[in-house]
């Protein structure tokens, strides 16, 4: 394989990526490109980044042999990269630190972010608190309702959460609104994008900051498993945890790279978020990539039990890796992911994020088809604390609900629901 050196100077990964934004954002992106080029290899910047990862995040995260589960399945050995053990509970913090350090060097006192489930919002709010930056997080109003706990976490950390009422009121609309904020406040604001999407240079710089995941694995796997894995498996929504673990493995030709998309209620039902499997190339949020869209080029609503995978696009580098055949992309349904979620709790004593459960689920399908000396490495990208509500609802269980919450629940069924909820909240 010839050396992999993408994106090109204009941010293209083959026909994907690029800078598809209004003129109003070009200068800000040019500034960011220039600053990143300046600090990317700057020893002082690298030292500060690595120091934060070590002492604030708790890196390196371990590689763990899921031995009991591997034995039960009777095939390949499954290893987990434990990003769930990071501070804030997921891989998102790696990228937020990198971008916040750039914001500091650019002299921007205000950071903004988009968030779906709230994980990137929480990570951004966390690092903004640590560096004393003003933080505004855009979140679709539907997601605000579904992820109340993360909204509260962000508020505790001092961030302002702005519910977005436009479009489908979910992640893609939060991203639109964050871009609108950035256009308006470009002089004092740094936009911390949470995934390997958006206009150049975001897909590149988010990948570079997340690549620490794969770099650590390359050092840890020989020690833990005696060699590099036969396959690396990661879930793909926008694709940042997957790019982070895939990227350092691209030159390792004997290692398969497998991205797992959310097949939702089934790929044939249309209710899924499998952009790479079911989408067609188009332009959204500043880059050309695979998109879930209708025949008129309008972006369609997506579905997944896991809010973090619920996005109609995907990072452009994944689109490229799919087309050249270096990575393969498969789907796992809501039901399969939920079953794996419970299995992982019971068999390994680890409560995984629903996103990560998609990746683990595919590994548990693949392992029995392989011999016991084969090795699978799964990116366990986040922990499942945030998913308690979703999983308990899906399991038909009712959580303990304090009296005000009970009142709110009854109120929600009555005609004056909004008013009653306001009264309860005081």
């Amino acid at each position, binding site marked *: 394989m010839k050396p992999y050196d993408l994106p090109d100077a*204009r941010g293209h990964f083959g026909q994907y990526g*690029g*800078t*598809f*934004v*209004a*003129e*109003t954002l*070009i*200068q*800000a992106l*040019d500034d960011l490109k220039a600053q990143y080029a300046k600090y990317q290899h700057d020893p002082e910047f690298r030292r500060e980044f690595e120091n934060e990862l070590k002492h604030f995040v708790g890196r390196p995260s371990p590689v763990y042999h899921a031995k009991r589960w591997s034995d039960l399945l009777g095939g390949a050995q499954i290893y987990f990269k434990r990003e769930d053990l990071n501070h804030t509970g997921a891989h998102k913090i790696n990228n937020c630190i990198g971008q916040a350090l750039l914001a500091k060097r650019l002299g921007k006192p205000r950071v903004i972010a988009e968030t779906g489930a709230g994980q990137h919002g929480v990570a951004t709010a966390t690092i903004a608190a640590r560096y004393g930056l003003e933080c505004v997080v855009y979140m679709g109003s539907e997601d605000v309702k579904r992820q109340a706990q993360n909204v509260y976490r962000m508020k505790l950390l001092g961030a302002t959460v702005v519910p977005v009422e*436009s*479009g489908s009121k979910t992640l*893609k*609309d939060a*991203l*639109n609104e964050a*871009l*609108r904020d950035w*256009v*308006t*406040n*470009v*002089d004092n604001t740094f936009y911390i994008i949470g995934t390997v999407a958006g206009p150049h240079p975001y897909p590149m710089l988010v990948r570079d900051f997340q690549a620490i995941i794969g770099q650590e694995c390359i050092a840890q796997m020989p020690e833990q498993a005696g060699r590099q894995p036969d396959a690396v498996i990661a879930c793909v929504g926008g694709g940042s945890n997957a790019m982070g673990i895939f990227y350092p493995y691209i030159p390792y030709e004997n290692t398969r790279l497998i991205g797992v998309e959310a097949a939702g209620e089934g790929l044939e039902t249309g209710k899924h978020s499998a952009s790479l499997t079911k989408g*067609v*190339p*188009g*332009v*959204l*949020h*500043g880059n*050309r990539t695979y*998109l879930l*869209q209708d*025949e*008129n*080029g*309008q*972006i*369609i609503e997506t579905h997944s039990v896991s809010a973090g995978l619920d996005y109609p696009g995907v990072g452009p580098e994944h689109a490229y890796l799919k087309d050249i055949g270096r990575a393969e992309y498969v789907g796992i349904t809501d039901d399969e992911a939920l079953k794996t979620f419970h299995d992982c709790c019971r068999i390994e004593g680890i409560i995984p994020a629903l996103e990560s459960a998609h990746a683990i689920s595919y590994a548990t399908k693949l392992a029995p088809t392989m011999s016991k000396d084969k090795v699978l490495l799964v990116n366990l990208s986040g922990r499942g604390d945030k998913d308690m509500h979703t999983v308990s609802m899906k399991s038909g269980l009712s959580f303990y609900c304090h009296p005000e919450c009970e009142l709110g629940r009854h109120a929600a069924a009555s005609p004056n629901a909004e008013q009653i909820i306001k009264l309860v909240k005081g």
Partner: protein
Amino acid sequence: MMNRINTTFSALKSNNKTALIPFITAGDPTLESTLPTMHALAKAGADVIELGVPFSDPMADGPVIQRSSERALAKGMSLKKVLALVAEFRKDNAITPIVLMGYANPIEAMGRQAFVTAAADAGVDGVLVVDYPPEEADDFSAMLIARDLAPIFLLAPTSSTERVQAVGRLARGYVYYVSLRGVTGAGNLDVADVASKVAAIKAIVPVPVGVGFGIRDAATARAVGAVADAVVIGSALVQTMLDAPPTQVAETGGAWLAKIRVALDQ
């Protein structure tokens, strides 16, 4: 063949007049209102009509145009239907230039060359794709120019001199200067600042310079018209049409624009 946009601006220049360019979203407030509104705007003194092609994710637009796009899409508006509207308009109006303004994805879904062919056949004169900046628009611009359609580009307060020069080399028809840092329909613009920026752009760019984003009434239109070759008004007109009785959308829009025309010509 001489593009209608060039013909229009030449005539305006010899009469020492500023072009008035209204923007409406195709299909809003109703699918049926757009064609009569286009005729009413032309009659009220529109020199060019910008017809918005609605998109599900209008990231450069403020709330008024966002809602307008959502309503139009909910009623079933599409790029194909916008092109059919233009063809229908051309049956009764062979003079007023039509510029389509929208986002890349509906065009990419149709196929860029297929779109250019269909747009030229329908009687479109210019195309402004908000998320095709010059660095991503080389081949698309060439396709447009080959069919005598003008690629129209945005310039921003933050655009460097090098970028203004680059846009100047690619632009046909006119350039659209975004008068403030923000989205369409945003707050108050600083006329003195706009004047100095527009003067700097005019010194570099060989085509007329229009100004838009934040022009909401006759007074701002007149102030900006004093320094620009064209004044673009969108959100305020879209809101006025939305507030009109459903049977009087075209008349209300036309009457509103006529007042701006009078102010601009004073």
